[in-house]
């Protein structure tokens, strides 16, 4: 029963909290740049306003264009329900293991890339081709790095991987975990389109990856996409925290108080990681596009080494 409550709680926390996380990250950046910042509630104000605006679709676009935003938001919500963030005993854990989670994330990205192609604009096509390049390098790394952790547990279920770490917290301090953690961190940055792979606040169409795909969206569709992107960011950061620092996460049978503690722990962990990521972005410039595959191939190599290490050191 606490698993169901926990799963509902984590979906609500992610859905409500992820725009606030984006607000916190923008605020951290603004302060480090010497600016005052718009406040952490600004992304919610933007979303509220976008929901009230007129929905317009460009001429010549079809159902692919219209289907992408709900599909992106829907997959993000499902992933938020499956991944162990508040509880390791999500009722959906049995039907969705790490392969399903990766595939769901990929489904959202592919839907958006197809929608960008559907607009027929130069920048849409360019953004779609770049997103696919990044995606093709990111997805195997996510799979392989989590796979390295799953070998120790003997299960691909994310819930049991995290449960095993909770029972034996010192197992995180091993070459396998360190290599997998670094690989997964790089991949998280690439998948969520942050610096150094992509710049979420750029105005230069030629340097865009994710932003180039959503240039043609307006009103409620754009609100859905921005909300879904924020959710994907918080889910991936939360997954990173749960896999390598599962402090305070709830098990199968816990009381209401423990669930509350887990929610607070999740919020604190994800906010800290987001703030750290935003602070790191101030010190970095965006990588040249042709250097991005090198970075991602490096992270894939780390993930592969993690798998090799998990066999040799087991």
């Amino acid at each position, binding site marked *: 029963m606490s698993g169901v409550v926990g799963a509902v709680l984590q979906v609500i926390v992610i859905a409500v909290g992820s725009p606030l996380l984006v607000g916190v990250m923008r605020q951290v950046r603004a302060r*480090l740049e*010497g600016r005052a910042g718009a406040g952490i509630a600004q992304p919610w104000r933007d979303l*509220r306003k976008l929901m009230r605006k*007129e929905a317009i679709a460009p001429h010549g676009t079809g159902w692919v264009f219209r289907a992408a935003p709900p599909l992106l938001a829907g997959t993000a919500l499902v992933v938020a329900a499956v991944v162990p963030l508040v509880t390791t005993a999500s009722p959906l854990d049995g039907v969705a293991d790490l392969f399903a989670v990766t595939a769901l994330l990929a489904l959202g990205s592919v839907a958006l890339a197809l929608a960008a192609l559907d607009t027929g604009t130069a920048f849409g096509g360019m953004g779609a081709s770049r997103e696919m390049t990044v995606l093709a390098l990111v997805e195997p790394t996510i799979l392989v790095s989590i796979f390295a952790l799953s070998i120790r547990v003997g299960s691909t279920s994310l819930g049991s991987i995290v449960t095993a770490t909770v029972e034996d917290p010192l197992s995180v301090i091993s070459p396998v975990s360190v290599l997998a953690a670094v690989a997964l961190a790089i991949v998280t940055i690439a998948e969520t389109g942050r610096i150094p792979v992509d710049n979420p606040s750029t105005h230069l169409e030629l340097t865009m990856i994710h932003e180039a795909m959503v*240039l043609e*969206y307006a009103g409620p569709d*754009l609100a859905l996409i921005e909300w879904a992107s924020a959710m994907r960011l918080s889910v991936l950061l939360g997954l990173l925290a749960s896999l390598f620092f599962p402090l305070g996460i709830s098990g199968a049978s816990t009381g209401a108080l423990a669930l509350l503690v887990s929610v607070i722990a999740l919020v604190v962990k994800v906010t800290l990681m987001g703030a750290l990521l935003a602070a790191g972005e101030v010190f970095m410039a965006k990588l040249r596009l042709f250097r991005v595959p090198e970075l991602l191939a490096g992270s894939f190599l780390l993930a592969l080494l993690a798998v090799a290490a998990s066999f040799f050191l087991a």
Partner: protein
Amino acid sequence: MRLWRKIVKTGRVAEPAPLRDPDAPRPGVAAELAGSVQIRHVDAGSCNGCEVEIASAFGPVYDAERYGARLVASPRHADALLVTGPVTRNMEMALRRTHDAVAEPRLVIALGDCARNCGVFVGAYGVAGAVSDVVPVDVEVPGCPPEPEVIVAALRGLTGR
């Protein structure tokens, strides 16, 4: 580390927010936007003087972003068009199309004397007219170029913050 020391030493450069000018023009549409105005800047033939001032209005010192205004990359994301310069013949159709691409409710800000009444370019052979001759204008910001304070005050009239 050098950058970090610089950040700590510089601290906050944004000037304290002045009181909001209650007389700033606030078209009825602006109330629907509720504190969040995304702006697409359109250079319809400007000399780039206004662009420099817009850049400083959104820079760290004036920080227009703290009032809920933000420059965006696409007219589809925008609520307001910030048009500078007299509308040249080559930009007339582009400005019309950009205006059509913005979702309702939408606003047009004519920034600078050229955008308001063609300024020194009035009657020039390449100029099609002022911004109000091409698209309906909601807010005008005078000045050649307008100072960042004036731009920020006009934007605060739209965001209401």
